[in-house]
């Protein structure tokens, strides 16, 4: 009898501590799940345009209607997916298409026919207008080239 009485309170105390710990753990899990349930729709809501842009960047080909009429030594700016791109008709008749986003800090670059170069006005980056190679200034990487196919109705630009 006396043994039982001595043991019982000890068992109860441990049990109480366990229940308390289990309760706190369950409350923590429930709280986290609740917060996640609130945060998830808000995150998706705010991320919607990003997802739309993702589907737009999945574009692999752009047809530029009537672009075959582009005069020699001039440029046509267009959007490839969501990003700006350029189509250059060089004096020697060659067609070159590249992304128009500077690899340094993302400004839109411009083709300068007189200097025969691609120039970024933001920090003075210079690219080769035939290959896209970064020639001078801060740009770390070349501009990406696209494949160009010219036909009677327009110019097709596609990912290389």
């Amino acid at each position, binding site marked *: 009898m006396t043994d039982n009485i001595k043991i019982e309170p000890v068992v109860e105390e441990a049990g109480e501590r366990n229940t308390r710990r289990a309760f706190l753990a369950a409350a923590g899990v429930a709280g986290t799940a609740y917060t996640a349930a609130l945060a998830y*729709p*808000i995150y*998706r*809501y*705010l*991320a*919607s345009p990003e*997802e739309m842009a993702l589907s737009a960047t999945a574009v692999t080909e752009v047809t530029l209607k009537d672009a075959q009429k582009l005069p020699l030594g001039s440029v046509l700016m267009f959007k490839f997916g969501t990003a700006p791109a350029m189509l250059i008709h060089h004096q020697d008749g060659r067609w070159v298409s590249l992304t128009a986003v500077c690899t340094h800090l993302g400004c839109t670059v411009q083709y300068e026919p007189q200097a025969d170069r691609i120039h970024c006005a933001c920090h003075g980056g210079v690219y080769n207008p035939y290959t896209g190679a970064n020639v001078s200034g801060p740009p770390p990487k070349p501009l990406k080239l696209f494949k160009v196919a010219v036909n009677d109705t327009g110019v097709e630009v596609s990912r290389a």
Partner: protein
Amino acid sequence: MTSKTIYDWIDERLGLSELAAFARHKTVPVHSQSFWYYWGGIALFLFLVQCFTGVLLLVYYRPGAEAYESVRQITFVMHFGWLIRSAHAWSANLMIFAILVHMFSVYFMKAYRKPREFGWLSGMALLGIASVFGFSGYLLPMDELSYFATKVGLEIPTAIPWVGSAIANMLRGGPEVGEFTVQRFFALHVVVLPAIFVPLLAFHLWLVQRHGNAVPPSIEALPPEQRESMPFMPNFLRKDLAMWLVSLNILALLASVFPWSLGKQADSLVPAPAGIHPEWYFMSPFEMLKLLGMVKWLQGEPGEIAGILLFTLGIVLWILIPFYDTKKDSGQRARAANYFGLLAIFALLATTVIGYWTIR
């Protein structure tokens, strides 16, 4: 550096321990009517929800000519946009409801008496601004219902002699409800009203801190040793937060099970749809004006003016209650105010019911 040193560093500069001591000594009375103390807090919580969801809507909403298109985009294109919009609209309605419950509980507990007159007045002003929030926000989607609700609502000031139509034109931004109206209602809804509401709310809450919770006259009459109270920290706060959680769950349930609809785009050439009616919190005044217009010798303009006058008189009497129901010691016997309150509730409920009944 230990957290104690960091705390001491901040405390020395901001006086955190004074705040903590203040919070420790704050108590909330406990009695049979304590339940009503939560409703101001619920209204506050729903206001915070609206600030939050409002900012989220602001991320994609475009006022002016594109208003409808942008709300359509929020509702049908953006992920969970329907839910954010629904939560905003539902919390607005629930907040008006919570404010009304709070107001009537304050009224019947006679919590407006000295020294709490400013609490009552600022509360009434907050309710007034909340209803303008509701009216201006209702137009922003520019669907059929919001278009006609605004059209009708802005006809009411035209009943005011001489200056009425000038006021209505100023509010509308021209003779017709259109993109200029949306643009100025938008400015009102997201800049002007919050700029007035938030400081007034801070004043209202500061007064509650200053004077503490009022007790109804029946409890006030008890000797101090028979009155019970509980500490604000953490007992009342914990219950308060539990009520916030309950409110959030009810809101989430309503917003997701009954998503707020978006009607057809507003078009001034399309006739008003059958069964069109104001939001529930405007139903009563709308119906009162309609009923007064039916009285034979009040038909037409005199009826409208009489209706507006009567309604204004009722509101003024309601607002001024702290100044003519002042008897503190015989509070229980000051029955006139109670009857006025019951009459107000009866009139509100009856006209609302009649209003909804006559739609069908």
